[in-house]
């Protein structure tokens, strides 16, 4: 035995290749078909020649034709013989390992190596392809030559004539094909129409001056339009024109109006894309629509030097749901009130507090960005992707002639002209948009069209009031803007219209302040349910709400009382609603504390006025108070400790309150409460005592306000203040409550009500009548004396 030969390493196989196996000692067995297919081909070709000779001569019998072709077409026989030899060679290779080794390694292996050394893979492929094509042509030529009785070379030149003769049949088949295909082409063409409206300059009369209260956004959009109109200014310096704007914000804040104003202001065509345009019955129609839309946009952009396209409700384009994503600025969710409806919602709380509670009630507030994952939505398969491609595909060369023709002539395709397309989108669900849509290059600028500022609201109110007859003074307008902090263009218009309807119903021509107040209450509270409380319950509800209102009035400086009511609505028994007098963006410890005080006032008041008894109506109040207190203690550093409770729990370091680590599956807030329970309870207890003290000091005012509520049922913020301060208000004369004798009557009435409450009996005395500044004897009097 010789020393082992150093074999070259086996090497790693490429990922898409099976692992290397050692070459087999003999040639692998060939399937029967592979053995005979060439022989069969030759046999068939030869038989065709035999047949062709017979077809050309009616006298020629088969046997003689065979004999003649054996002589005349012996080249085929020779080829078949060669093939037979080859097959015999293979057969031997399959049997004999030595023979196989000799041929595969010495002969063909050596040739293979020599060829590889001289030619690249690409050259070999091209040569092999040419040889194959040449073989096919030669075979065709020879057979056609025999069939047509000419030389093979001439037969090749006759091929076009043969083709020409076959043309009618080919055309017929082609027609049949197109007849079928056109049905679908036509159907899809028809389906891909519509959903897109084009407006030319001066078609739309809306201007930027019609957009009120969103000046900062309008200024930015003006800038975008300026760049579209005069792109040279920015392009000369090497910049590029921002091509996409997203307007997002709550409904009714004027996004669509702004887009219309853009259409009205600009001297460019304006294409409006219907939100439903991309919702289709068939796959692919949306893609066709996107493509035809952008073809149109490019045409318009070239013709008019620029074009603006507006996608309204862009969330209908849908998203691919790839990431749990949150829109710019976090999930929007204002106006959601998933509250207990036992007492009065949480309308007396500050908006931000309410919002925080809402988030909490919605689910896990501690996971940032757990917004709605806007899976699905609109477009259907591929539509969004097509849109994305078109948005970023505007810079590539286009056109058949440009791309193929010029390249065939050896020229480089011309770059496309600068299509100046300004894409505008509007949505109130930015979190439902696909992230890829929002990247710079597609949407360059994202503007939040938020609630209008107070100045904007005043401007909007002015605008709408100026369109109808009214007697509203500028001071009243200012106040109205103050007490409607989250009004949008749409709600303001609605309010003005409602006030006008109220005035007309009362037989007046112009809107007055009480009409506005009435309209606002109707809009905010809905129509009252017209339920008559029994007297002792009415008194209890009135006292409950009065407690809230008194504490709010005494402690809360950052909010004003908007209204107080004991009219039962669809989801509350009574309500004290507050509003922030100014736009304010930070929240303070004192404010949260007063929020808690206002929440606890109901429990403190009920206990105090009903001899320690209290109703279940305070459950929602306590929930809110506890939650705010928990966040103050554990998260905001507004309690006795500084560390953030959520971080401490996440890092398993315990907390200053001595709480244990979070248990498996435990909700953070539950854990929070357990660990901080004592401190929170202490805090709430302190605040409850403060609320009690406050109410004890203001006992007379509580009873006065409760009386005013019982009589008028609904009081405006101004009336509430008038009653508490004992002055004359807008609709209620509070001066009567300064009278000690009247106060004593109220005390008596309250005592009687407590007695009736305890005995579940009827009220022994009637409600003392009150005084109104507007309309004579109050409505409550009749009911009370009845």
């Amino acid at each position, binding site marked *: 035995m010789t020393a082992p030969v150093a074999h070259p390493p086996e090497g790693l196989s490429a990922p898409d290749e099976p692992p290397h196996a050692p070459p087999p000692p003999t040639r692998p067995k060939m399937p029967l078909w592979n053995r005979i297919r060439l*022989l069969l081909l030759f046999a068939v070709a030869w038989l065709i020649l035999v047949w062709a000779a017979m077809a050309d001569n*009616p*006298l020629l019998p088969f046997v003689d034709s*065979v004999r003649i072709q054996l002589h005349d077409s012996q080249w085929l026989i020779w080829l*078949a013989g060669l093939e037979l030899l080859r097959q015999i060679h293979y057969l031997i290779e399959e049997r004999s390992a030595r023979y196989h080794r000799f041929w595969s390694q010495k002969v063909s292996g050596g040739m293979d190596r020599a060829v590889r050394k001289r030619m690249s893979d690409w050259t070999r492929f091209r040569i092999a392809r040419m040889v194959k094509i040449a073989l096919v042509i030669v075979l065709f030529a020879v057979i056609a030559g025999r069939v047509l009785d000419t030389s093979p070379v001439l037969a090749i030149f006759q091929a076009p004539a043969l083709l020409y003769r076959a043309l009618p049949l080919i055309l017929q088949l082609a027609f049949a094909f197109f007849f079928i295909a056109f049905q679908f082409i036509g159907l899809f063409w028809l389906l891909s129409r519509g959903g897109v409206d084009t407006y030319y300059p001066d078609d739309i009369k809306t201007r930027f001056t019609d957009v009120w209260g969103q000046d900062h956004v309008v200024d930015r959009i003006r800038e975008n339009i300026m760049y579209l109109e005069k792109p040279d200014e920015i392009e000369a310096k090497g910049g590029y024109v921002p091509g996409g704007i997203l307007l997002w914000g709550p409904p009714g804040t004027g996004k669509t109006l702004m887009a219309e104003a853009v259409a009205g202001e600009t001297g460019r065509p304006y294409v409006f894309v219907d939100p439903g345009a991309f919702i289709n019955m068939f796959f692919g129609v949306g893609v066709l629509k996107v493509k035809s839309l952008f073809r149109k946009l490019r045409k318009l952009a070239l013709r008019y030097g620029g074009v603006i396209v507006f996608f309204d409700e862009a969330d209908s384009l849908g998203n691919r749901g790839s990431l749990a994503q949150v829109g710019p600025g976090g999930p929007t969710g204002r106006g959601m009130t998933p509250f207990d409806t036992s007492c009065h919602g949480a309308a007396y709380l500050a908006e931000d507090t309410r919002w925080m509670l809402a988030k909490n009630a919605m689910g896990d507030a501690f996971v940032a960005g757990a917004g709605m994952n806007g899976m699905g939505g609109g477009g259907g398969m591929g539509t969004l992707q097509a849109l994305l491609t078109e948005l970023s595909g505007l810079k590539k060369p286009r056109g058949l002639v440009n791309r193929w023709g010029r390249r065939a002539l050896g020229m480089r395709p011309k770059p496309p002209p600068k299509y100046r397309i300004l894409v505008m989108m509007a949505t109130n669900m930015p979190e439902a948009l696909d992230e890829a849509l929002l990247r710079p290059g597609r949407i360059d600028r994202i503007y939040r069209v938020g609630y209008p500022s107070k100045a904007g609201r005043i401007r909007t109110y002015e605008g709408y009031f100026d369109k109808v007859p009214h007697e509203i003074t500028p001071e009243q307008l200012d106040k109205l803007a103050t007490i409607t902090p989250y009004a949008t263009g749409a709600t303001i218009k609605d309010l003005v219209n409602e006030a006008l309807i109220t005035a007309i119903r009362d037989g007046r021509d112009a809107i007055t302040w009480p009409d506005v107040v009435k309209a606002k209450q109707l809009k905010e509270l809905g129509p009252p349910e017209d339920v008559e409380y029994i007297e002792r319950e009415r008194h209890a509800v009135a006292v409950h709400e009065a407690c809230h209102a008194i504490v709010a009035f005494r402690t809360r400086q950052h909010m004003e009382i908007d209204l107080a009511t004991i009219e039962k609505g669809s989801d509350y028994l009574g309500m004290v609603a507050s509003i922030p007098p100014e736009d304010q963006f930070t929240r303070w410890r004192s404010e949260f504390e007063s929020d808690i005080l206002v929440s606890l006032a109901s429990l403190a008041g009920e206990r105090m006025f009903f001899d320690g008894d209290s109703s279940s109506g305070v459950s929602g109040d306590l929930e809110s108070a506890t939650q705010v207190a928990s966040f103050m203690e554990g998260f905001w550093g507004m309690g006795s400790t500084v560390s953030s409770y959520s971080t401490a729990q996440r890092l398993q370091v315990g907390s200053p309150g001595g709480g244990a680590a979070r248990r498996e599956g435990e909700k953070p807030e539950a854990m929070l409460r357990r660990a901080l329970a004592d401190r929170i309870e202490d805090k709430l207890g302190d605040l409850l005592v403060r609320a009690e003290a406050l109410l004890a000091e203001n006992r007379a005012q509580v009873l006065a306000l409760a009386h005013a509520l019982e009589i008028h049922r609904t009081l405006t913020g101004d009336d509430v203040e008038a009653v508490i301060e004992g002055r004359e208000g807008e609709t209620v004369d509070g001066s009567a409550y300064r009278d000690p004798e009247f106060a004593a009557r109220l005390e008596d009435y309250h005592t009687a009500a407590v007695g009736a409450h305890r005995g579940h009996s009827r009220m022994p005395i009637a409600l003392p009548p009150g005084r109104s500044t507007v309309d004579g004897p109050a409505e409550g009097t009749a009911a009370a004396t009845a």
Partner: protein
Amino acid sequence: MRCLRLRQGPAVAGLVLLAAALLAGCGAPQYTYVKNSADHMYVKIPASWHSIDQKDLDNAVGLDPAESASSRGLWLQGYDAADTPSALHLFGSSAAEPAVLVSVQQVPQASRGGLSLDGLRDFFFPVSPTARQNNQNPQLTGFGLMADDVLTPGDGVRGVHTVYRYSLGGGPPQMMDQTGYLNDDASKVYLLLVRCSTTCYKDRHGEIENVVSSFTIREKP
């Protein structure tokens, strides 16, 4: 081996079949299949008869060798059963073995109207009574008409088959078996002439009959 035979059975059977087909074709064909594909004329001639040299034939007919077959509008071929084929056997005074002339002639537009069945009869030798009466050639003697049949194979083709006897230039009497066809628009004349001496004609009547009956014209491909 047994196993091998079983597995390779179909292949072996295929090879055997191919070999059988080749063997079946091993013999030479019995006939020479003469055809003019362009004009759709076919005839089969026994393989033992030889083709007469084309130049020889053209000279004997008096064709201009400079002109091509297509330009002069005449296609013709000759076959001879004698061991040394010669055009003389076709046009000379005596042919001891059968000789065949087959031709297709394009008829000029102007003379198409004058062609009749008698024209076909009298193409080589005066056969119709009128032609014989007008015959000025003293070399042609001893006429005898054996057969005269009008042929209508269809598609507007009509023709006449005549068998007659003449002595040419004082030689032994010769039998002429002549078939002529005229196509539908009288643009082509197809002719087949088989001649040999009367004794030969009697002896080899079967062969000659075979050749004559195979003469086929197709108006449509």
